[in-house]
Structure formats: C-alpha cells, structure tokens
C-alpha cells in the first residue's frame, strides 16, 4: 500500500508541473479544434500526432496524447450543433438533436448541455477505468500462451464485427489481411524470413504506425478532398452555460449512457460511434412519451445520452489497451503506439515493468477532463470562425503532416512509402466497404497471436483436446467467446 501511495505521489508531482499542464492544455485545445472541423476525426488527430510525440519525453507524450483524445471527442459536437455537420462521426446523434435547437436560438444551451454531458461522461469512464483495472490485471496475469492467443484472436474478431455492422465478414477479412501483414519479417521463434520476397528491409517487420497514419490520415484526405464541399453556415451560438441541472434532470439517462460508453469502449473495435449510437437508441426507447416526442426535433435528453456515452468511451477504451495490450479502438491504438515508442510495455505486466505509469494516465485523464470543460466553453466562438474555412484549404495541409509523422517514427524513408501505400490501400478498401480499424488491430496483435499459438501447441503436443479443454478453463471460456463472436456475426447479425 505504501508503494501505491509513493507511486501516486510521485506521478502527481510529475503531472502537476506547469509545463505538463501547458502540454495538456495544448493537447486539449488542439483536440477540440481538430474535432470541431468536419472531416478531421479523432483517430486522424491521434494518428498524425504520434510523429510529433516522438520528440517528447515519456510523460509529456502521454499527457499530450490524452489531452488530444479528450478534446477531440468533445470537439465533434460543436460543428454538429452549429452547422449541422458532425465534426466526428460519433457526433451524428448530437447533430440530429442539436441543430434543430440551434435553429430555434438555443444553440448555446445545446452546446452547454453537450459540454456538461461530456464532462460527466469522462468522469464515469475514468471512475470505471480505475475501478476495473486491478481486476482485469489480476485476470490477465493468469493467462498463458493458449489464452493469450485466443485473446488476440477474439480482439481481431470482435473488432471486425463491431467495425462493419451489417457485414461482419468484411471486418474479419480486413483483420485477417492485417494478420498477414503482421507476419512479414523474421519469425520470432526460428528466425525464418516470412513473406519478405528477398527484401532485407522487410525482415524488420512492418511497423503499424505508418499504417495507422496512412489508413487514418492519407485515406481521409483522399476521401474528403476531391469532394466539392461548400463551408457550413454557422447558427448563432448565444451564451454557453453548461447546465448541470440538465444532467440531474436526466440522471438515469446520464448514468446508463456512461455505463454503455465505458463498456463499449472496452470492447476492441467498438469506439465512440457505436457507444453514442447505442446509447442514443436505448435512451430513445426508454424515454418518457412526452420526451420521446421531442426526439429528432431537438431533445436535450438525447444530447446527454450521446455525449455522455462517447466521452465515457475514452476511459473504457484505455482498459483493454493498458491491461491486455489490445487497443479499445483505433484512437487507443495511437495511444498504444505513443506508449510503445516511449518504451512503455502495455499488457498484464504494465505495473511491474512501468511502475506508476497507470496512475499517471489516470491523473492525465482527470486533468484533461477539467481542461476540456473550460476550453470547450472558451473555444466555441473561435470554432465558429474556423467553420468558414473550406475543407479544400485544410485537407492539403494534412499531407505533409502524414509524411513527417511516418518518417519521424524510425527516421526511415521506407515508412513514408509504407504510409503512402497504406493510404491508397485504405481508400480502395473504403470504396469496397471494408473497415480499416480491424486491419490495424490485427497488425498489432498478429505477432502476439502467432508466437503464443505455436508455444501453446508445443505445450499441448502430448495432450488430448479434451484434457486441454478441461485443464484450461479460462482458455475454454475464451474459446467459446471467440466461437460465439463468429456465430453472432455469421448467423444472428445476418438476419
């Protein structure tokens, strides 16, 4: 217990330095402005900023990325309410409800409600993250090779299911292609070169960071820039006062949405979009009839349900990322990348290998949440000015950032080419309706799955299948979960 307090105290001392607060403020500000710009998603912000974080120290990089993550998830609500275009896809429910309110002259109150709900949502996510990390870490430490293999496969399978909705098959294909990419290079057990075609540079494996930048940075530019997009005309904002009384009025909805957001966040592949959509849908079904009548025409309860959920998702997504090394969503994969580049080993041994870093992440999320609350109020008016800038002006400027980011990771020009190829491939996959997040997740989890499967098979060489199923109950449960994920995707979702 003394060690816990000592670690907490030392991390508090690091986090509450003026420089660290400035870094977090910069991250939150950048995140809000980025999220507010239609077409610039949270994942894109996170992917592009990995490159910048290479020049920062360990704690500064983590604080900066957490600030960007927290800020950008809220930022999407601003353009959703004021110009009827969601800044990030998870802000679609906020757009449906917020824009009619803005047209009635209640834009300030709608945005205030979104700010208060986001603030509360972050708190729910952080609280549940802190509450569940010890239990999941304890469970994760019981995992052996067989369980780790199954866990990695479940991560990829569920990410495929959650990413593509009506066609889980496409999500799985995307993930399985990612697995093949992850096998490129020298294999970890025998040192045999796989899929390298004689190119020595491929023996070092394909880094997932340039892939992440290409798939979520360059692909977005290729998707959005060629479209003709007139800038939105912002509605009048009025005075923005976050009404916490509104949250009290919708206390049940707030708590339910917070729980939904956190749980969804903890499922690999299901991010803020699924959280806000699901929470919005459940809140609509459970709303009182007089409130339900306002749904779609400007309901404050609906805004609360969506914004609490998508912000609670942040804490939820950090749960599998930190404890199992499986990113909760694509944005969390960027956090994972930043952590790994700073030699922070995430997974079951995070506490022993990086003592105190988990506490620093808790503190970082709490600081970012407070800063998000104040900056959100302050930045709404400047954001309105930003909306008058055409996307055709902003998008080309992403291209040099993609290039710098990909190069900065290992100062290799190969990574820049890789980023470009990933960008083109991402565009083609998007045109054919394949989601991209499962591919990135599979590239991250592929080596884990490969090594652990082979180790487990070696251990099980003289065992019968039945004895494996009986002797390894945790593995059997995970196997059933993996099989159910496929069953659900193939048979139930298809109906």
């Amino acid at each position, binding site marked *: 217990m003394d060690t816990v307090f000592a670690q907490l105290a030392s991390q508090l001392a690091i986090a509450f330095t003026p420089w660290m607060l400035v870094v977090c403020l910069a991250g939150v500000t950048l995140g809000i402005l980025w999220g507010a710009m*239609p077409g610039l*998603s949270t994942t894109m912000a996170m992917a592009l900023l990995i490159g*910048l974080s*290479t*020049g*920062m120290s360990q704690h500064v990089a983590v604080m900066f990325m957490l600030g960007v993550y927290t800020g950008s998830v809220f930022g999407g609500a601003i353009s959703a309410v004021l*110009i009827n*275009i969601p800044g990030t*896809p998870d802000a*679609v429910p906020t*757009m*449906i409800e917020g824009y009619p309110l803005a047209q009635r002259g209640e834009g300030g109150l709608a945005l205030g409600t979104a700010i208060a709900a986001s603030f509360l949502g972050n708190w729910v996510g952080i609280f549940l993250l802190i509450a569940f990390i010890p239990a999941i870490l304890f469970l994760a430490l019981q995992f052996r090779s067989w369980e780790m293999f199954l866990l990695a496969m479940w991560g990829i399978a569920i990410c495929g299911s*959650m*990413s*593509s*909705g009506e066609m889980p*098959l496409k*999500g799985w*294909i995307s993930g*399985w*292609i990612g697995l*093949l990419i992850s*096998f490129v290079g020298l*294999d970890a*057990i*025998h040192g*045999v070169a*796989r899929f390298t075609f004689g190119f020595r540079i491929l023996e070092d494996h394909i880094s997932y960071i340039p892939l992440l930048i290409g798939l979520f940075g360059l692909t977005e*530019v*290729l998707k*959005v*820039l*060629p*479209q003709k*997009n007139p800038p939105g005309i912002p509605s009048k904002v009025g005075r923005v006062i976050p009404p916490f009384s509104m949250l009290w009025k919708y206390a049940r909805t707030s708590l339910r949405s917070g729980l939904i957001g956190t749980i969804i966040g903890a499922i690999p592949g299901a991010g803020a*979009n*699924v959280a806000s*959509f699901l929470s919005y*849908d459940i809140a609509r079904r459970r709303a009182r009839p007089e409130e339900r009548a306002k749904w*779609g025409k400007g309901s404050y309860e609906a805004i609360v349900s969506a914004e609490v959920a998508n912000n609670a998702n942040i804490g939820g997504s950090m749960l599998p990322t930190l404890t199992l090394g499986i990113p909760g969503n694509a944005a969390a994969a960027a956090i994972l990348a930043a952590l790994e580049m700073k030699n922070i080993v995430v997974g079951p041994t995070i506490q022993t290998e990086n003592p105190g870093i988990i506490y620093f992440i808790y503190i970082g999320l709490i600081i970012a949440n407070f800063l998000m609350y104040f900056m959100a109020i302050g930045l709404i008016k400047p954001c309105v000015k930003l909306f008058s800038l055409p996307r*055709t002006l902003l*998008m*080309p*400027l992403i*291209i*040099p950032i993609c*290039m*710098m980011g990909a*190069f*900065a990771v290992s100062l290799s020009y190969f990574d*820049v080419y890789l980023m*470009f190829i990933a960008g083109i491939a991402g*565009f083609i996959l998007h*045109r*054919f*309706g394949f*989601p991209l*997040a499962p591919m990135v997740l599979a590239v991250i989890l592929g080596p884990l799955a490969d090594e652990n499967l*082979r180790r487990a098979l*070696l251990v099980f060489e003289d065992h019968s299948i039945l004895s494996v199923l009986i002797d390894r109950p945790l593995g059997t449960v995970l196997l059933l979960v993996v099989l159910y994920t496929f069953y659900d995707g193939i048979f139930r979702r298809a109906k």
Partner: protein
Amino acid sequence: MTDIPKSRIQADVESLAAGKFTGEEGGPLVSPGKDLAAAAMVAIIGIAAMALSLDLDAPASLYTAPGLLPFLTGLSLLIMAAGLAVKALKRAHLTEILKAAGNPIGPFLAGVEGRRTLVLMGLVLAYVVLTDLINFEIRMPAGFYTFRFSSYETISIPVIALILKMFWRARWLACITVAAGMVIALAWIFRDGFEILLPGSG
C-alpha cells in the same frame, strides 16, 4: 453541405432512425458486383498466402512451423472470400452482376470526383518520391539562431501550393502563401520545437 462523405452521414442518420446497427465505421452497403470483385481479390490473397506459407522452412516440429498461422490465415481468408461471394450472389444474380459490371473502374473515372482523386494520388506519389530523391539542407547561422532550410520545404511548398490551387481554387499568390506559411511552421515545430529530423534533410 457534406464534409465527412455524405453517404456516411446519411447512412448514420437513417440507421439511427431505424434503430439499426451499422458498426463503428458504418457506411452504406456496396454493390454486389463490387463485393464479388472483392471476394475474388481476397481469394487470390488467401491462396497466395497458403502457397507462400507451404514454401517456408519448418526447422522443428509442425507445431512451431513459421508457416502454420500464415497458412491457417490464408485458408480462412479463402473461406471468407467464398462467404462474401455467396452473400453477393444472394443479393443479385450473377448474370445481372456481369451485365452491370462492364469496365470496373469506368464509373469511377467517369465522375469528376474519381478523376480528382486519381490526380491527387499522383501528386502525393510525386511528393513522396521527390522528397526521397532530393536531399539537402542549408544552414544560415544568424547570431543566436541558425536558420535551416531543407529539401523538405523546397519540395513541400510547391507541391502543397499546387494541390491547394487544384482543390481550393484560390489565386496562386494565396495558395503559395498558405503552403509556405504552413510548411515552414510545421518544419519549425518538428525540427526546432521537438528536434525531430525531417524527411529529405539528412
């Protein structure tokens, strides 16, 4: 008035109204023809992965063979490709798909958006290749600060200005000013602010 592709927002709004689950990356279903073409491509990838896996050495037992999981991945990709093809054929008859197919990239190229996308891809490729091929850095010490200008800025400014001219359609002077301002600011943040080496300046 769309910025995130219109179809995505529309699909999301419709799915919310219908209480339907469209997934994290959402979007509408693509045509059966496209799904069938994708299935063929995925099958080729799966078969290639299986063939390459079989070629790999297995220094010890089959259980630790380097090609084991790649082979299984290729095999499952092949099965998934078959599943995707079956789903596509359930949505439309093969003859209808073949009749509608024609030149698969024809409709993409026929639209203004498709052509603009191809030009943009070409420009980004040229940008990447040029930055790789041309490498220099000029240093100008001026008292307390050393001004640095590298091939990265030299290539980035005209390329980004050209992309701005094509898509933003402002005057050349405005495009060059915005491109120069942004590239120099970015280079300063990365190189001087965070001491990160820029591509092409080594």
